[in-house]
């Protein structure tokens, strides 16, 4: 078991290395340098030139790469050109916002998908099952930005029951229940949108898993010893089907990150996805490279997490 985790972890290191190299090359192609923002009409070009030499911008690329990556490991990603603060402090707060939004989305996702998947599997081929399958098909086919806009229009403007942007009302003090509730309330519409869009995988998996389990011997045994059918579902089938769902968890995180660019931009939610789009618009390259690196790292972490959970759940797939 630990061998698998270690092996999987070691595979991640070269992937991270190639990713960082790719991002470094991309960053080199971006116009401008950390001092572009400092130039004013009174600046002496020689001073800037000296600063550039001091910062190592004329070093060979591998020296620059080495410096960049060692600084990044120490949490120093440079400064934002537009906000004039360090990138790590700029991203820190946004990262927490994205984290809370993702957490709520995942909770809602499972709260919607698990009952629907179980019902569809249990009452296979019934009208209910057909409805759920149709729903999961539609949610799979709708692009994120279209549903987000329609929801924002319907529940933000047409029937204004949800706020249309921001994370919290300014009238509340941090630490109070009102503040907490206001935060959740602001996250609710984007989280519901995301959860509805992402349910497809879980519903379809759970449904086919339950349909398969129905004809298994352990279910027959449970039935023949007189267990009521609802108990069989809750105590036997559900538990067995739930394990693979847990393994999906890592991929869910990956999907969330990709969707956050759209969802946060549309719902005006100041997280990392929205920061990414606004940094692109203002050509704030140190923020962009850090965000791409961070998203790449989190994606890798998500697939690592999936593999680890999977190897705990299913010993057959452990790498030896």
């Amino acid at each position: 078991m630990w061998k698998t985790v270690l092996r999987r972890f070691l595979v991640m290191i070269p992937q991270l290395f190639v990713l960082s190299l790719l991002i470094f090359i991309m960053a080199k192609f971006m116009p401008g340098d950390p001092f572009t923002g400092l130039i004013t009409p009174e600046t002496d070009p020689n001073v800037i030139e000296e600063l550039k030499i001091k910062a190592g911008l004329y070093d060979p690329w591998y020296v620059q790469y080495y410096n960049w990556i060692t600084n990044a490991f120490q949490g120093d990603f440079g400064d934002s050109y537009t906000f004039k603060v360090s990138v790590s402090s700029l991203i820190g707060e946004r990262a927490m916002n994205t984290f809370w939004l993702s957490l709520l989305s995942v909770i809602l996702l499972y709260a919607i998908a698990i009952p629907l998947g179980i019902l569809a599997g249990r009452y296979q081929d019934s009208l209910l099952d057909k409805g759920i399958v149709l729903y999961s098909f539609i949610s799979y086919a709708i692009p994120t930005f279209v549903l987000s806009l329609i929801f924002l229009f319907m529940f933000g403007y047409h029937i204004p029951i949800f706020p249309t942007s921001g994370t919290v009302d300014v009238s509340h003090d941090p630490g109070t229940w009102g503040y907490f509730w206001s935060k959740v309330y602001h996250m609710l519409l984007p989280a519901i949108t995301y959860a509805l869009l992402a349910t497809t995988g879980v519903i379809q998996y759970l449904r086919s898993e339950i349909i398969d389990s129905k004809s298994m011997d352990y279910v027959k045994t449970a039935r023949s010893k007189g267990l009521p059918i609802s108990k069989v579902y809750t105590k036997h089938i559900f538990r067995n089907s739930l394990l693979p769902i847990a393994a999906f968890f890592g991929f869910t995180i990956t999907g969330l990150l990709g969707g956050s660019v759209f969802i946060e931009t549309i719902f005006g939610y100041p997280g990392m996805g929205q920061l990414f789009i606004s940094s692109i618009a203002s050509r704030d390259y140190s923020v962009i490279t850090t965000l791409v690196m961070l998203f790449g790292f989190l994606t890798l972490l998500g697939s690592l997490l999936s593999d680890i959970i999977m190897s705990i759940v299913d010993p057959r797939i452990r790498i030896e």
Partner: protein
Amino acid sequence: MTQQTNSTENTAKDTISSPPTGFQVILREFKKDKLAMFSLILLGLIIVGIYVASLFIDQEELMRISIRGKYAEPGEGFILGADHGGRSILGQLIIGARNSITIAIIITIITGIAGVVIGLVTGYFGGLIDNIFMRIIDFFLTLPTTMIIIVFVTIIPKYNVAAFILIMSLFLWIGTARLIRSKSLSESRRDYVSASKTMGTRNSTIIFKEIMPNISSLIIVELTLNFAGNVGIETGLSFLGFGLPPSTPSLGTLVSYAANPEVLSTKLWVWLPAALLILVLMLGINYVGQALRRSADARQRLG
């Protein structure tokens, strides 16, 4: 006379005994699934309609800004109203849909060819080539693709439609290659491939004339679903402003006017038709793809 009846009897027997092939199966599936048939006809009508209508629209004329028609409501000189520049929404809808569909088709073809060829070859030969490509594919799978495409779009100096298609294709062949590889891998262990090898058939002939036709139904399904996916990705990126360049309007560009809260809340006619058209296209293409997938798998067929 007797001969004639005999021959008709024979042909009747032939049709009964031979299992339905390729196209017949698909046709039967669509006949059985009314919704899929409806989606197919609707899609055909929309696509043909858009291409024919776009022939009658002069794009320069359409994109000319006139202040007089600013946010004209539907019916006030424009059938579907006008945007902030007084440009006809209907015209932009047709041109945008044409551009979005054309580009999605081109990307589907490019990524389809790359994915199918790479998948077939790596799956067939296995060994070192397969290992190298699998590592590359594994790496691509862990990339935050949306963000990297956006970065590429912003740093390319001469950005145009061709550049956009290339950037998209660079990242979108992965899924197809992976799927085709796994299928080609199992297919090349089959007896007919071994038999063909023993007879001394060239590898290229085995791959493209023997294995490929056997997984053609899978390829068709994959391409259809990719087409839907590409429409979604292109319109999504154009919506964010990192898709087609401004000179080539897309359905996503039209929806992106809704980024202005005033347009979103009060000027529905500007963005809703494009959003609904994207929705209809995505649902339709995906539904047709699902029906094709069912007909490709004997266990799932309805008809």
